């Protein structure tokens, strides 16, 4: 079991004939992902690794039922591609590209909420349900990182995820699902919106949160724990604890959050809510050992 995605999920790839799109489609199929169709305007009738390509998302879904779409499109086309997927009725979308313009991202977030869709990204490696399926690009062949298990992982970062997940595996655990919500200022799904799915998943015993400075997402997780929306153990690691005020943290950005946004504040909020907070990557493993051993 896993969240959002498993090997039966019928996946569409928008931008399937591009260099990255075709390369990773093959890897996704090799890993076990049920990729059923692709879209690239002008390429209908072709196929990529045996997957049929259509001109538009509507034409694809008219022929083949689709549950989820993965966007391999450049950032300037991400908004359009998302709107196309939502209009075709797709309720799960993963957007990988880094560099979506802010005003586009705001409108995308609004559209996702209005459509009742779970849109993950952008600026992410995607999502992977270990040993079953992935939407995105993960070096699943790295055994010391991508090992199936019972820890749910959600993250704002790519390379830091490899670092932390390696520590989870080193401590003898593995992951159920890894959800890369991405590093953009406007993530289209927020940490606290993923938590209920991990809460319900019988194969997830605990969650590791990989966060960083800026925004209010870690504080929202603390609130979800306080409000008993999430009741399983949660271990957090946050990057940027000693960072001087970042260049991206403008006045108005900090003010919306009224005193929130620094890693120190986030750590306090999480600890007060009952989460365990690792100061260093290595401690993620030892903290998991401490809570999960005591449960057995």
């Amino acid at each position, binding site marked *: 079991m896993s969240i959002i995605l498993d090997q039966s999920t019928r996946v569409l790839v928008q931008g399937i004939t591009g260099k990255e799109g075709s390369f990773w489609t093959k890897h996704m199929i090799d890993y076990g992902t049920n990729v059923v169709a692709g879209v690239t305007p002008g390429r209908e009738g072709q196929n990529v690794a045996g997957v049929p390509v259509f001109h538009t998302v509507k034409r694809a879904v008219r022929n083949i039922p689709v549950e989820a779409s993965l966007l391999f499109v450049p*950032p*300037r086309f991400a908004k359009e591609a998302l709107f196309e997927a939502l209009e075709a009725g797709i309720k799960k979308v993963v957007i990988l590209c*880094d*560099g*979506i*313009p*802010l*005003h*586009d*991202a*705001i*409108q*995308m*977030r*609004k*559209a996702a*909420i209005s459509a009742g869709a779970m849109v993950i990204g952008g600026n992410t*490696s995607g999502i992977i349900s270990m040993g079953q399926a992935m939407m995105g*690009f*993960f*070096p699943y062949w*790295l055994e010391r990182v991508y090992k199936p298990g019972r820890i749910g992982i959600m993250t*704002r*970062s*790519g*390379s*830091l*995820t*490899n*670092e932390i997940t*390696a520590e989870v595996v080193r401590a003898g655990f593995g992951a159920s699902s890894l959800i890369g919500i991405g*590093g953009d*200022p*406007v*993530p289209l799904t*927020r940490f606290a919106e993923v938590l209920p799915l991990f809460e319900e998943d019988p194969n997830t015993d605990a969650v590791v949160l*990989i966060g*960083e*400075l800026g*925004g*209010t997402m870690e504080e929202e997780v603390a609130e979800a724990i306080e409000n008993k929306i999430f009741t399983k153990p949660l271990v957090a690691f946050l*990057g*940027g*604890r*000693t*960072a001087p005020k970042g*260049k991206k943290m*403008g*006045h*108005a*950005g*900090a*003010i*919306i959050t*009224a*005193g929130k946004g620094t890693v120190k504040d986030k750590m306090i909020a999480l600890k007060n809510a009952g989460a365990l907070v690792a*100061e*260093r*990557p*290595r401690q993620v493993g030892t903290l998991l050992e401490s809570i999960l051993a005591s449960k057995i």
Partner: protein
Amino acid sequence: MKLFEYQAKELFEQIQIPVPNRVLIENPEEMAKATDEIGFPCVLKAQVLQGGRGKAGLIKLVSTIDEAHLQAEAIFSKAQNMSGLLIEEALQIDKELYVSITADPVSGTAMMMACSEGGIDIEEIAKNIPEKIHKITIDLSQGIQTYQVRGLLYEMGLDDRLIGTGTKLLMDLYHVFRNHEAELVEINPLIVTKDGKLMAGDGKISIDDNALFRHPQFQVTRAYYENDAEFEAAEEGIPYIQFDGDIGLMCAGAGLTNTVFDLVNDYGGNVANYLEFGGPNYHKAKKAMEIMMKNDIKVLLIVTFGTIARADVMAEGIVEAMKELNPPFPIVAAVRGTGEEKAHELLRSVNIDPLIDTEQAVIKAIALSGGVKQ
């Protein structure tokens, strides 16, 4: 991309947001001509991007030409990375307000904030009198509505006679935010003059870097950066921030770079810079090394754990840079992820010991930098 005050005010003026009369001068010799046009008293305002200009002595009120010359000389000699001096009419101030627009990432809207107490740091206001900050959210697909803005102005207790002009001003400000795809537009202070007019006393605009391709009028130049290394890195699209320590960081991925930064600080080292060559820049190891060599460092710490950013490609770049640039500092490397076996072979070929563990790499780099500092 943060704009200078004079640029923000030009954008305000274009859309008819009232701004004070002003002239931008490039050197102190242009002062007399500028003050002839503006008159006395006037305000000299250094055009720099950092905040806290008043406290730093970079904004001065002057009443005579002699005083203007004296203060201008002082500002020109004191300010670093200044893009001119703004000579601006001194307003007769009745009240100072605050207004800004930014993104609300939770609801997917634009958020306009206003406060009846402007002129001071907004973070101070948020901490001390949060109840005086009023907010509205704007759905970008619907656009801003006058009733929303009017409501906001009534909430903040603006004088009835100013509601009409205030509403127009804030509607215009929203159009500045939208037309130029800003991350932030802020007027602080928004001045109510003694003769009952609203005027933008200052202007802060930050354009979304990801949208610059749609706004070619904003060209990135050296003026927007604090030093050569930051500018050179920016031209390559490599995030770079200068610090004053002696351990150079060359890492891939913002999250991992921040984490290595934390670990170096935790173990008592001093970071010389933040350089992130992950994502689309993973083939730019050589260029990154060139930038590092502009910096006086005792050791270079390279930490990566990439997926798309392949370890072997990064290692190739490092080896190439070692051979061609012959860097004068020792290198500690933990290069992992896709293609790491080949990467480790490559690193060994130039006598770099490929480490697997991040903390171990950090500890080794600190030792090579001369050990833990006070």
